[in-house]
């Protein structure tokens, strides 16, 4: 069920009322029931997968935690008797046991994800080679069901499991309460990829109705709807027109599509997350922020610390660090430095690790080459800017621009352009086509092309552009206000009439300018003449 459907709003209202009235005593149980109902609507079959992940992770974690306790206790008792070496040895032994369980569980759950998500991708590639060498019959695609949010909840489960293994926190007791962590309905659709220790404080606690929290939640949701319905879904028409007909829309239209998509993606994704976080707030549960005004980043590295944060940190904590500080990597590092010299050698482990991370990031976004290439391109850009660091330093030294407003703005625009350009892989969904269009954009873009009539065929009316423009302004202004803290807090301090004007205005904007419902469907052309 979509967040932007009447169904969801009704569902949410019902759950919310029960939460603070009838089910006051069983709040988290209610949320669990609601989450499973919500998940059931996405397809009854899907339930099996999320249940398997939940159960296996739960018990594996318990087992691992159990061994941890045993070993800790044993060490404590025999602290006196044992020498340092013996203690080390014993610990290592226990760790091995724990690792066995962890790996088994990881293998199973990541296995499920891989099979469901990547089988067809693998087949497609195998077929490609079969075809290339004219051997054998192409394998037919399997129609895999892809359970809603599987990449998200699997990652959450993995994070939890590894943390328990690392002894970051004890394993959760109570299968059902753990099931809620994995399936919590606001975040199961599109993240954020919550960490157990971030939400465990709120999730099972008893929440009494808090007017402020609830109204803040509603405000956040409304803001999300504004971004999604008024901006994202409106500009979507133009984006699709452009990217689905590259032949017609070349030159400057490629650039236009690129920028439109940057706006659409931002509004859609952050809007969705706003709805998610706001919904959770309604229940007194605080999820981690997933964005930190990403389009104000001054370089790619910073951008990736501020965009889809929970995913970035997940990859850093559970892939980048483990790889880059693993023994083989450290040995490889020594080796590299001996053979390629300090300079390269020092970088080898870091770069290898991040290459892996970006490959994973790419394929996580979608089982297709365009996403993989997209990931690797991100890696390249990051490496290059890392290597150019000295040049920047030199530049900043000799031209005293660093920190000046205009230079900041320049950096911000540069970053936005760079990221938008990379995202063309996501737009055109085809590597070679993307490169073609990118080249085309660089070579053939001419301003006059905007006035050659094609612009009118993008599917948006002048009024739409006006709405988009104003919407964009509102986005920018709020982001700027945000720099110095929560906008909602600031507004809450204002007199009632101001607050009312703002929120009711926003509500009306969504209601009227939102791109939803039959009325918006352009195929309903019969209404154009009334």
């Amino acid at each position, binding site marked *: 069920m979509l967040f932007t459907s009447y169904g969801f709003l009704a569902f949410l209202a019902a759950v919310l009322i029960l939460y603070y009235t009838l089910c006051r005593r069983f709040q988290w149980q209610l949320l669990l029931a609601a989450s499973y109902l919500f998940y059931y609507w996405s397809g009854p079959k899907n339930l099996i997968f999320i249940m398997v992940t939940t159960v296996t992770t739960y018990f594996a974690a318990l087992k691992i935690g159990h061994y941890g306790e045993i070993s800790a206790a044993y060490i404590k008792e025999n602290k006196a008797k044992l020498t340092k070496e013996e203690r080390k040895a014993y610990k290592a032994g226990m760790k091995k046991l724990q690792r066995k369980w962890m790996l088994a569980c990881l293998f199973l759950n990541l296995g499920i994800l891989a099979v469901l998500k990547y089988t067809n991708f693998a087949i497609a*590639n195998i077929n490609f080679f079969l075809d290339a060498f004219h051997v054998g019959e192409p394998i037919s695609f399997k129609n895999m069901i892809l359970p809603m949010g599987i990449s998200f909840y699997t990652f959450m489960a993995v994070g939890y499991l590894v943390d328990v293994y690392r002894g970051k926190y004890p394993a959760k007791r109570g299968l059902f309460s753990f099931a809620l962590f994995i399936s919590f309905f606001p975040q199961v659709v599109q993240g954020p990829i919550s960490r157990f220790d971030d939400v465990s404080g709120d999730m099972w606690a008893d929440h009494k109705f808090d007017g402020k929290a609830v109204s803040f939640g509603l405000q956040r949701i409304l803001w999300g709807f504004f971004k999604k319905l008024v901006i994202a879904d409106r500009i979507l028409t133009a984006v699709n027109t452009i990217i689905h007909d590259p*032949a017609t829309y070349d030159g400057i239209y490629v650039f236009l599509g690129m920028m439109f998509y940057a706006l659409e993606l931002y509004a859609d*994704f952050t809007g969705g997350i706003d709805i998610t976080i706001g919904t959770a707030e309604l229940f007194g549960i605080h999820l981690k922020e997933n964005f930190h005004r990403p389009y104000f980043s001054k370089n790619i590295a910073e951008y990736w610390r501020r965009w889809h944060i929970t995913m970035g940190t997940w990859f850093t904590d559970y892939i980048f660090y483990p790889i880059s500080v693993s023994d083989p990597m450290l040995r490889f590092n020594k080796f590299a430095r001996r053979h390629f010299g300090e300079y390269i050698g020092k970088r080898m482990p870091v770069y290898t690790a991040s290459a892996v991370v970006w490959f994973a990031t790419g394929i996580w976004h979608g089982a297709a080459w365009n996403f993989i290439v997209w990931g690797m391109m991100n890696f390249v850009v990051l490496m290059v800017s890392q290597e150019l660091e000295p040049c920047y330093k030199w530049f900043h030294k000799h031209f005293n621009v660093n920190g000046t407003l205009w230079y900041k703005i320049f950096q911000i625009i540069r970053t936005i352009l760079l990221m938008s350009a990379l995202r063309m892989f996501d737009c055109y969904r085809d590597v070679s086509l993307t490169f073609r269009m990118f080249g085309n954009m660089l070579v053939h873009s001419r301003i006059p092309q905007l006035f050659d009539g094609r612009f009118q065929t993008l599917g948006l009316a002048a009024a739409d552009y006006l709405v988009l423009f104003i919407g964009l302004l509102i986005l920018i202004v709020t982001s700027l206000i945000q720099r110095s803290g929560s906008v909602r807090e600031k507004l809450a301090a204002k007199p009632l009439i101001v607050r009312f004007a703002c929120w009711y205005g926003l509500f009306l904007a969504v209601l009227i300018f939102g791109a939803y419902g039959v009325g918006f469907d352009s195929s309903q052309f019969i209404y154009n003449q009334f």
Partner: protein
Amino acid sequence: MILMIAALSMAGCGSNSGAGSTTAAKTEAVETTAAESRQAAETTAEASESAKEAELTGFTFITGDTVIAMNADAAPILEELGEWENYVETTSCAFKGLDKTYSYPGFDLYTYPLDGKDNVNSVYFVDDTVSTPEGIHIGSTKEEMEAAYGTDYEEEFGAYTYTKDKSKLQFLVTDGVIDSVEYTAITPAA
């Protein structure tokens, strides 16, 4: 367009599911399988060839050297076909713009209005003097039909309907013999 529909059907309830589709760079709402992304690439390719090409991916009726594709702009086709035997305008209640029917020897050509243009809505055989490019005409047998178009049809009350891209081709069969042949467009309005 095609992708949007795909996305809509993918994401289920609600009317804005299309939004999900382009935002793969972030969400599960769209997990493109290789199959999809390839098909996507193809459709884009097709579209890029030329609009006409795209139309021709459906069933087309050919008379003389005039090619009639469903949903195609009627103007040039009428130009080529030249003088008609009969012309009729029909309005549906409370709807501006006219459905038009042009009768030619052997078949009627129906058009529907969209954005100020008339597009081909259907071609209906009125006698056995005309036949489809695949050689099926009124009087052909069901076997001949299946030989020409295969058995991938929907059958209801002796109406055999083949669907290809944005076009349908329907044969009415009574006791093994075809007594009606009709091309129809799957219109954006419907």
